[in-house]
């Protein structure tokens, strides 16, 4: 019986080996084009692409093949075509340079587009100068790993064109639309419109990525429930990171930094429910976290360092918990446009807390009010910002903090920490 099984297995292996053949493509070989190789390939085959430059227009993959590059072959779209379009399941794309996709106002021409696929992977690829970078639509169980996606959009374009919208001239780096169970891991996205874009993507994970110098958002996240994004760095983006219209997001260990400009946010939250923001570092942003209609979210053990506003929270955000966060050297700690306080602030460290701790339990005996009067004014009358650093404002803030009348008197941390909360990094 065992022998029989052995033979069966052996037979199966040899069968599959002989079945899954490898087709080699190189500029001087018998098969010199990828399109030709795709024509003769069967499901399960491997197409090995050797070093060279391939300009073949739009390459459509309709079979479950592996496209493996050797020595980083360049596949060029000549600024006219979508470079690769994948419409089959189980396709693996690895080790290619994909560049110069076309640009269109009607279609989303991408460096590589996966349309209605399952179990596709794209790994170790370099995408340069594409309109859209890696584009997944209506796909499941895909993996995007170790890619470098560098687009044509430079931040200077945005700065030089105050008032004119030129963002529409560029596409997103990694764009996922209507997907499920996706993994975006260890990619580096630069100079696109949005670095990583998620719309209607469920049960997915974004991990260890770097997204920087994008015109708009480093990560743009909409209608994407039950997702995680962990260990990413979002740096120097035109408008930071936006997470919107979403339930159950887990955001942990990310760095949101240097999103500094007139309309920049470290993390913009809009219509977020039941989410968890944990162990993030929010450093040097104009607005650290901007919360508009964010509810039942836990914000715990984060560092807010040197931001303009560490936290801007609007009155429609309710039942959030802020605990064990460090607010250090921000111009404004909390700004709100509401008189009420529907959120809980407890056991945070505020670097400008001036209270004392008589019993030495590490918790200040005097409650801390994180909203300054000036912060309140600026939120309701933005023009009052011209009085920044006026002595008059300093006096107003000082008196108001001691005898609060205008600022939401219930918005306070009753148990402010005396020392910085050390969470394990």
């Amino acid at each position, binding site marked *: 019986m065992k022998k029989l099984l052995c033979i069966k297995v052996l037979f199966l292996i040899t069968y599959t080996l002989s079945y899954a053949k490898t087709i080699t493509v190189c500029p001087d070989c018998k098969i010199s084009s990828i399109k030709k190789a795709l024509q003769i390939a069967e499901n399960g085959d491997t197409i090995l692409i050797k070093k060279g430059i391939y300009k073949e227009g739009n390459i459509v993959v309709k079979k479950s093949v592996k496209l493996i590059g050797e020595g980083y072959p360049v596949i060029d779209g000549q600024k006219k075509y979508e470079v690769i379009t994948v419409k089959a399941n189980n396709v693996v794309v690895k080790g290619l340079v994909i560049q110069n996709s076309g640009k269109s106002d009607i279609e989303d021409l991408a460096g590589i587009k996966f349309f209605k696929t399952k179990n596709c992977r794209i790994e170790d690829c370099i995408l340069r100068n594409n309109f859209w970078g890696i584009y997944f639509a209506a796909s499941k169980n895909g993996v995007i790993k170790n890619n470098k996606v560098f687009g044509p959009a430079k931040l200077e374009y945005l700065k030089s064109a*105050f008032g004119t919208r030129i963002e529409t001239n560029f596409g997103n780096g990694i764009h996922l639309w209507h997907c499920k169970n996706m993994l975006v891991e260890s990619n580096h996205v630069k100079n696109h419109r949005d670095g990583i874009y998620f719309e209607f993507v469920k049960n997915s994970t974004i991990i260890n990525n770097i997204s920087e110098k994008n015109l708009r958002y480093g990560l743009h996240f909409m209608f994407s429930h039950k997702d995680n994004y962990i260990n990413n760095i979002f740096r120097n983006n035109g408008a930071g990171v936006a997470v919107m219209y979403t339930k159950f997001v887990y955001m942990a260990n990310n760095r949101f930094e240097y999103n500094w400009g007139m309309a920049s946010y470290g993390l913009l939250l809009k219509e977020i429910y039941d989410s968890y923001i944990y162990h993030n570092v929010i450093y040097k942003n104009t607005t650290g976290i901007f919360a508009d209609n964010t509810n039942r979210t836990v914000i715990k053990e984060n560092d807010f360092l040197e931001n*303009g506003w560490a936290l801007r929270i609007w009155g429609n955000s309710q039942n959030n918990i802020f605990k064990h966060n460090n607010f250090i050297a921000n111009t404004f700690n909390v700004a709100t446009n509401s008189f009420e306080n529907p959120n809980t602030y407890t056991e945070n460290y505020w670097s400008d807390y001036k209270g004392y701790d008589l019993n030495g339990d590490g918790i200040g005996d005097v409650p801390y009010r994180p909203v300054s009067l000036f912060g309140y004014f600026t939120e309701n*009358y*933005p023009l009052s*910002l*011209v009085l920044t650093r006026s*002595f*008059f404002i300093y*006096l107003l803030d000082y008196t108001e903090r001691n005898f609060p009348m205008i600022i939401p008197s219930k918005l306070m941390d009753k148990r402010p920490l005396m020392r910085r909360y050390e969470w394990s990094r």
Partner: protein
Amino acid sequence: MSIKLLKYEFFNMYRNKWIIFYFIFFLVLTTALFYFAKSPAKVVATLLQLIILVIPLTSLILGTIFMYDSRNFIELLLSLPIKRSSIYISKYLGTTISLSISFALGVIIPYLFFIKSLEEPPEYFLYFSLVIAGIFLTFIFVAFAFLIATFFEDRVKGFGSSILVWLYTTLIYDGIILFIIIYFKDYPLEKPVLLMSILNPIDIARIFVILKLDIAALLGYTGAVFQKFFDTKLGISVSFGVLFVWIFFPLIVGLYKFRKKDF
């Protein structure tokens, strides 16, 4: 003759302990700030707040004190064949130049000392706009002090009105701006507020420096309007023009009063 007088006034100021104290104050303060903050941009941010507070106050108070104290000397000079205007001008220049030098040295020496050891960008332009703003404030408020001291014989009245001028420019004026912003919040107020703030020398100095600091990004749309204004040649010439008007208006009124005054 007036050069001689100016020279005398200038060196006479350095016999005064106030000027030395003023210099040491800025020296120690700036050194401490550099020692702790280690970044010129941050030092400027903190110094700015002190400068717009301290310079007008000290200029007003010291200016009034000097004018009252040298009353006997002025009376002596008046008995000599010297033009009244050159007495007044040399007194004014002697005071302002020595105060400005004390201030400028006090903030520049630590800067030059620390700048090599710091890893942050040196921010020359930012730092020198701060120094220039400080010098302008000195010139403006000493002119006011002299005007007040010539206007009132009574010292108490003189000091009182000096402090009133200070309160008005640093506190009350900003309060009025804030009131207008809040009361007329439904109107597009950017331009009126811009106009109002360039009418107050302290506000010009403050906004001019703030727009160069990185907190300018916090100002959002308002900041963009201001930035646009201050970036144009018109904006720069208007704001400098206003600063000069604020120097010459009290100076000339004071001079006129001084020439007509019956000692």
